[in-house]
Every structure is written in structure tokens, then in C-alpha cells.
């Protein structure tokens, strides 16, 4: 491995070194503020190191990782999202009676795992990244362990994630047994080789999809989502909803594009069915939720269904649509969970719709931000989600996936209903269950402010982001 490759690996090296550094500091001195500062500095440094390293792309590292603009774009997205989660966690954990420091170590390891996933080009690195991401999450979800709800959610996630990993490994083994390679690019060529048993490969791929589908919470692998979202601390739920899913989706998009999924009718059919089922199940089940976190969980299932529409459209435009939509979805989801984190108290999270009754008249800014995030998830103009949905619809129409696009439209309309329910509660004239004017923590306020600016920026002037996507994602195709 030469010096240039090492330099190109710098973002990954920094994100892996930061938790070690934090751990060492913790051995000597425990201070919540210092820990957070180090974590933020590490994340910022990893993010910043993407820029000097981007001149050295693309290259392979050790046959396991592919470093190109595609992976760098998503790494940047993951780091930025983790940064926001860390900021939100500071106030959230500060209000609880627990040692907060180890939380951040776990968070950083998970972020490193997501960075490995988006740059993996080999089953080994993929699995490594996946476990790096999943194992810390078991602990993160049940971090406030005095609360049985958290522990329950953690165990639920542990069992199901373990099972899905087993499926994934089995699928990888099947593919390897038939094709004799574990490198993604070779798999796609080897699969076309005459004499390979395609059914064998497809069975393996189907099992891999099961594993991935679990992480992405696609129907029918979605059962865990509402319970885990509800039980997890709000910032962790935000992390699960964004970084964990986003990394997986980036990988899925990259390799099924190389694989040229359109050649495999059965796979197309499979993903079409999954997409439709996710959209309908997510939106219809969200209609009946009184818990905001569960509602967001179901809505995230639906959003992954929308993303699959663009995924199925496959092409340069579709990839750009996925990248933009993920960015928009990250901002809105982080913002929505951010508001929940900020409002959550010592005992429990502010997760019932009743908690938000009339919030707009007590703290108009917070309610405004929450409403904006929800409207973005619903895809209303001036917000990032609108451009994202527009983009996905464009990709679908471009590939003549009319049926899927029309189902997307129907689902958007269904989705509106439950987002509006929360917004109606925010602006309701009745006073709510939550105590009088919550005091906005400084860091949380800044984070939410920044996320709102990003939301409006992406929604009103998306040209900047599109230019970035064109220079990164589109180069891959």
C-alpha cells in the first residue's frame, strides 16, 4: 500500500482513531463537554480530510475498500449526520442520570462502520462494516439502561440483527461457493459466466437481500422498526433512521448498478414488490400511531420504499435522485428527531402526539422547525423533501415506471394525513401535556437552526447540492 493510498484512506483512519483517542482521554479525565468536543473535532477532521484526499481518487485499498467519489460523497453525508447526532445527544444525555461518555465512543465506532460499508468492495469488508455498525447500536439503543423500554428495544434489535446477519453470511457463502469470488465487481462478471448455476446465485443474492432489507427496514423485514425507534433514545433513533439506513442504501445502489439489476427480471420483480409493500405498509400503519417516534418509524419505512422507486429506475438520473433524496431525508429526519430530543426530559422522551399540543404558542420556533421537517418528509415546496420527491418522480418517469410512480403519488397523499396530524397538534388551540415553555438548550438550538437552514437551502436553491452530486455520484456511472 503506497503513501497515496494511505492518504486517501485518511478519513477512515481519523474516524477510527477518534474513538481510541476518546477512550484514552476518558481513562484520565471524565468530562462530558470535553468528550463531546473531542468527538466533534474528530468528526469534523474526518469530514475535512475528505477534501484533500479527493484528489487521489479513485483507488482500491487492500482489495477490500474502494475509495472513489461515490464513497466519499456518502462518507461525508454519514460524518455530517453523526456530527448532528452527537450535538443533539449532548443536551439529551445531560438531562439523564447516566454516565454519558461511552455513548460517544459507540457512536463513533458505528459511524466508522457506516464509512466502511459505503466504501466496501468485498464481502469481508462489507460484513466488517456491517458489524461495526450494528454491534455498537445494540448498546446505544439500550444505553439508558435503567429504563426497561430501552433494554427491551436493544434486545429486540440484537436478536433480529443477529438473525439477519446470519442470513447475510449464508447468502454470501452460497454466492462464494458457486462463483468462487467475494469481490463485488467480479461477482457481476462471474455471474454471467456460462456454466454457473444461476439459481444458486439468485438464492444467495436473495438471502443477502434479506440481510440488507432488514437493515433498511423494508417490508417484510420491518417489524422491528417501530419498537426499536420507540424504545431507543431519540438521538439514537435518528442515527438508526439515517446513517445506518443510508450507508446500506448507498451500497445497495452501487452494487446493484454494477450487477445491472435490469438483466434479472426476478430481482426487478422482487424489488418492485418490496417497494410497493413498503410504501403502503409504512404509510397505512403510520396513520394509526399516537406515538411520534413510532409514526416516524413507519414513515421511514415508506421513505425507503420511495427510494427503491429511484433505485429501480437505475441510471445516472436515478442515482443522483437517490443521493439527493438521502441528503434531504437525512436533514428532515435528523431535524424531526432533533426536536424530540430537545424536548425530551429526564424520565421519558417527548414522543406522544399529545405532548405537542399547542407547542406553537409556547415556543413558536421549535414548533416551526418541527412543522418544516414534517412538511419536508411530506414533500411540500420550500423544503428539501419537495425537491427530493420531485427528483424521484422524475427518475421514475424517465424510466417509464408509471405504475410505481403513481403508487408513489397515492402514498404521498396518504402520508400527508399523518404528518398533518402532528402539525395540527402543534398548532392546536388546546394546551398540551408537556410542561410550560421548554427551555431550548444552546447546542440543540444551534443544531436545529443549522438543519433548518440546510432544509431551506436544499429546498429553495438545490443547484449547489446537485452540482456536488454531479461531481461525485454521477462520475461513478
Amino acid at each position, binding site marked *: 500500500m503506497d503513501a497515496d493510498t494511505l492518504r486517501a484512506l485518511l478519513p477512515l483512519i481519523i474516524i477510527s482513531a477518534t474513538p481510541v483517542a476518546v477512550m484514552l482521554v476518558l481513562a484520565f479525565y471524565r468530562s462530558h463537554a470535553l468528550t463531546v468536543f473531542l468527538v466533534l473535532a474528530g468528526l469534523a477532521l474526518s469530514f475535512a480530510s475528505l477534501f484533500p484526499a479527493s484528489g487521489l481518487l479513485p483507488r482500491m485499498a487492500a482489495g477490500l475498500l474502494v475509495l472513489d467519489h461515490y464513497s466519499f460523497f456518502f462518507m461525508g453525508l454519514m460524518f455530517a449526520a453523526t456530527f448532528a447526532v452527537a450535538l443533539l445527544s449532548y443536551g439529551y444525555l445531560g438531562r439523564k442520570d447516566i454516565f454519558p461518555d461511552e455513548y460517544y465512543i459507540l457512536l463513533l465506532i458505528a459511524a466508522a462502520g457506516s464509512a466502511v460499508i459505503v466504501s466496501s468492495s468485498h464481502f469481508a469488508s462489507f460484513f466488517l462494516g456491517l458489524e461495526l455498525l450494528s454491534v455498537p447500536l445494540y448498546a446505544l439503543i439500550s444505553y439508558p439502561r435503567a429504563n426497561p423500554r430501552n433494554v427491551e428495544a436493544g434486545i429486540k434489535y440484537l436478536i433480529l440483527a443477529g438473525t439477519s446477519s446470519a442470513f447475510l453470511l449464508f447468502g454470501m457463502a452460497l454466492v462464494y461457493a458457486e462463483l468462487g469470488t467475494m469481490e463485488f465487481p467480479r461477482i457481476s462478471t462471474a455471474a454471467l459466466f456460462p456454466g454457473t448455476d444461476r439459481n444458486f446465485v439468485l438464492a444467495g443474492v436473495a438471502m443477502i437481500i434479506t440481510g440488507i432489507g432488514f437493515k433498511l427496514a423494508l417490508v417484510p423485514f420491518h417489524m422491528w422498526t417501530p419498537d426499536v425507534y420507540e424504545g431507543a433514545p431519540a438521538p439514537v433513533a435518528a442515527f438508526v433512521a439515517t446513517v445506518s439506513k443510508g450507508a446500506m442504501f448507498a451500497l445497495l445502489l452501487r452494487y446493484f448498478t454494477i450487477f445491472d439489476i435490469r438483466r434479472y427480471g426476478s430481482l426487478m420483480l422482487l424489488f418492485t414488490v418490496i417497494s410497493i409493500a413498503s410504501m403502503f405498509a409504512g404509510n397505512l400503519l403510520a396513520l394509526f400511531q399516537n406515538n411520534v417516534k413510532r409514526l416516524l418509524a413507519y414513515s421511514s419505512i415508506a421513505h425507503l420504499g420511495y427510494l427503491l422507486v429511484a433505485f429501480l429506475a437505475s441510471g445516472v438520473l436515478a442515482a443522483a435522485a437517490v443521493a439527493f433524496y438521502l441528503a434531504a431525508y437525512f436533514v428532515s429526519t435528523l431535524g424531526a428527531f432533533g426536536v424530540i430530543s430537545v424536548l425530551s426530559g429526564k424520565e421519558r422522551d417527548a414522543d406522544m402526539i399529545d405532548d405537542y399540543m399547542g407547542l406553537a404558542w409556547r415556543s413558536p420556533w421549535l414548533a416551526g422547525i418541527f412543522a418544516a421537517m414534517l412538511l419536508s418528509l411530506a414533500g411540500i415546496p420550500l423544503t428539501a423533501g419537495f425537491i427530493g420527491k420531485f427528483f424521484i418522480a422524475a427518475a421514475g418517469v*424517465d424510466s417509464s415506471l408509471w405504475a410505481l410512480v403513481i403508487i408513489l403519488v397515492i402514498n404521498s*397523499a396518504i402520508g*400527508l*394525513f399523518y404528518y398533518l396530524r402532528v402539525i395540527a397538534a402543534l398548532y392546536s388551540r388546546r394546551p398540551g401535556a408537556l410542561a410550560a415553555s421548554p427551555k431550548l438548550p444552546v447546542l440543540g438550538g444551534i443544531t436545529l437552526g443549522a438543519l433548518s437552514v440546510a432544509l431551506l437551502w436544499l429546498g429553495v436553491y438545490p443547484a449547489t447540492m446537485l452540482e456536488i452530486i454531479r461531481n461525485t455520484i454521477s462520475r461513478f456511472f
Partner: protein
Amino acid sequence: MILAWIIIVLLAGGLAAWFLARWDPLWARRTCLFALLLDLALAVSVFWLGHIETGAAGLPETGAWLIELNVPWIPQLGIGLHLAVDGLSLVLVLLTIFLGLLSLSSAWSEITGRVGFFHFNLMWILAGIAGVFMSLDMFLFYFFWEMMLVPMYFLIAIWGHENRQYASVKFFIFTQASGLLMLLSILGLFFIHGANTGDYTFDYTRLLGTQVSPSIAIWLMLGFFIAFAVKLPAVPFHSWLPDAHTEAPTAGSIILAGLLLKTGAYGFIRFLIPLFPDMAARFAPVAMGLAVASIIYGAVLAFAQNDLKRLIADTSISHMGFVLLGVYAWNGLALEGALMQIISHGISTGMLFMMVGSIQERIHTRDMDVMGGLWPDAPRMGGVMMVFALASLGLPGMGNFLGEFLVLFGTYRVSSAFAVIASLGFVLSTIYSIWMIQRTFHGEKRGGYRVRDLSSREMAASAVMIAAIIWLGVYPQPVMDTASPAFNGIQGAAKMQKAPDPVSGRPSKDARAKSIWTLTP
């Protein structure tokens, strides 16, 4: 740049009002008043600037843009900030500002809670509507089209009456879902145009004349049709309207009836027919059928109401049916009639809603069963209500009569059957209007009310509106002169398209539908 300023002033005025209301609600109202007056000045100045730019004594003959702004916005996707006005747009923008002032005046005493946020929403709806009337980029158009929904939702959901949650959500979902169908059509058009010419753009002027095969064109056209028909609204897409109008606060009802519905009509005239002239021609009998059904059905619905506000809301369905009929008749007379109807209906229905608002403010009910005999207490209120009820029933000398008459006149040339059935609307509207006045102001006094008469502020607003509606009825020429070049231009744009389907070989079936278009004077 003036066009952008018209929108920016409204947006900024709304934001300023929101903040100022924390110190003094009165300043929020004054800020909005100032912003609207400034906008009025800007819009009127467009009229004169247009004269200067073209150098002609009158407006350009063929409907060239009076003033235009075209800067890139999202160049990667061929999206630009393309704003332009011709006579038609200008008239509608002026109507927007005018009714904005009326709704501001109605809210002056009615809205006392959360004043800042109310005015923010009010101004942002107006900005969205003005944007719809001015945008020439399909994406931008869709952007504004959807942008006005959120503040309207808030207006109904927060300041509305008893059943406001249901009404606001229904309104939002109807309009949003239909809008998304239009988005699909826009995208379809975008990609077809791009594939045909290599020019991927959302610019309306370049999308005009896109060759679309009929089997696809029908679907694209339907996407637009549903979006516009929901907004208009035409039967059977009307069911959101009575709820939304009834539950909205007075200012909201005025904007809904006066402006929001008109964006649908505008969409038909500016976008649907010029983009798909042949398909629209084939579809015309269906659309006109729906229009006639709306006219009759809306009027019949109005009979069944005890709720005064709901009655007026239902009459909107009937009156907007005339607009749809006029648009699909697609000749000069009918289009001018449709425009007259758009303006007059905006004013007369806006005023009727304002009167209902005043009544409700005083006696806290909209139920006509407990009204009656209000006249002796409030003769001025009764007089104003009478004037606009007469306007709404189509009394000659007022704008509404002219609008409906021209529409019928234009329609008769195309299809006498539709014209004859539609004229029944005149009869029905006479009955329900008179009956409405009878039940509220005349007869025995049923509630023990002492009703305060209109204040001088309300009287002043009413006087302006009465003058406007009579002016429109008696001397509509300035409006016609402003708009007719635009109509010529739009009709020209629609005609420029060649028949896309020379191979279909079914001329006999098309001939009848086509004749609707060839008969235009």
C-alpha cells in the same frame, strides 16, 4: 425584476408582520396594508412599463409578454426562474392584490388571536397565487401551486370554525394529491420534449408544441385536467370546497373563492389547452359536460343548505362551471366571458363571504333558520348583501351578468345544447339568491338579536367593491382591452401545433370534436 419584487414584497411583508405582531398587532396589519399597496403600485407600473418597452400606443396585438424575467435556477435540470406577464396575467395579479386588500380588511376586526402568524399566512398565500399567475416555468408553476397550500391549511386549521380540522386536512389532501398527478404530467412532458429535441427544459414557451403521441397525450392531459378541475372545482372533484369554504375564517373564504379557485381556471387557459390543443379538443365535450353538471349541481346543492356560508360556497361551484364552459368553448367571446366571470365572481363572492362574516361576528351563527328580519336593525348590511346577491344571480349591469352572458354566447356557437342547459343556471341562481336574502334579512325576526350595522370602515370597503362590480358590468372595455391580446396570443400558440396524429385514420370520429375548434371566430 419588477415581477420578482411583486412576490418578494408579499413574502417579506408576511415575515415582517409576523415579527411586528409581537409588539403590536396593529403594526402587523399596517405592514400588510403597506406591502399590498406597494404591490399594487408595482403591478400598475408593469402596465405602463409594458407600454414603454413595446413602444406601441396600446398593448401588443399578439399577446407578447409585457415584461419578463428569466434567470437560471436549477440549471442541471433545465429549471429557470421564468416569470412573465401578459394582459391576462396582469389582470389576475391585480385581482389578487385587490382581493388581498379585501381579505385584510375583513380580518382587521375578526382576527384577534395569533395576529402575526395569521398575516404571515395570508401574505404567503397571496405570494403563491401571484407566483402561479406569473410563472412560465412548469416547475416554478408547480412550486407556487403547492406553496400556497400550506399557509391556506394553517389559515383554515387554526382560525377556522367548528369543524376546521376535518376541512383543512381534506382541502390539503385533495389539492396536494391532484397536484402530484399534474407533476407527473409535467415530468412526462419534460422527458418527451427532451427525447424529441434534446432540449431538456421546463420552460413553458419551449414546451409549447411538443409532439406527443395521442395515446400518451391523453394521460398527460388528464393529469393537468384533474389538478385544475379539483382547484376550480368541477363536479365530481368539488367535495372539498363546501367544507373548506365554510370552515375557513372570512379572509380565508375570500381568498379561496376569489383567488384559489381562479388558479385552476388560469391553469386551463394558460397551460392545459395550449399544451395539448388536439387532445383538449377531443376532450372538450366531456369537460363541457362536467361544466354544465357543475352549474346545475352546484345550484341544486345551494338550495339544500341551511348554513348561509355553505350556501354561498355551493354557488361557487355553479359559477365556476361557467368559467370551465367558457374555457372549453375556446373562442374569443367565451374566453373574455370566462375572464369577466373570474373577476366578478371573485369580487361578488368575496363580498358575500365578508357579509356572512360580519353577520357571524355579530350573532355567532350561520344558521339561516334562526336568522330573518335583520333588515330593520342593519339596513346598510342588508343593502350591501342585496347588491351582491343580485350581482351573483346575474343582474344586467353588473360584471357577473356580462361574464355569464358572454360565456353562453360563446358556447352557443360551439354547442347549442350545452348553452341551453347552462342557461338554466341563471334561473336557479335567481331563485336561491333571492331566497337567501328572504330568509336572512326579511320576514319575521326569529332570534332575539340586536344587530349592529356596518361600521364606516366596512361601508367604505363595500362601496369600493360595489363601484367595482358595477364598473365591470357597465364599462368592461379596459379589462377586455388588456386581456384580449393575451387571449389572441394563447389561442395562436394553441393553433400553431400541427395535428400530431395524421396516421390514426379516424377522421370521422374526430371531425365533430375538431369542429369545436375550427368554429372559433
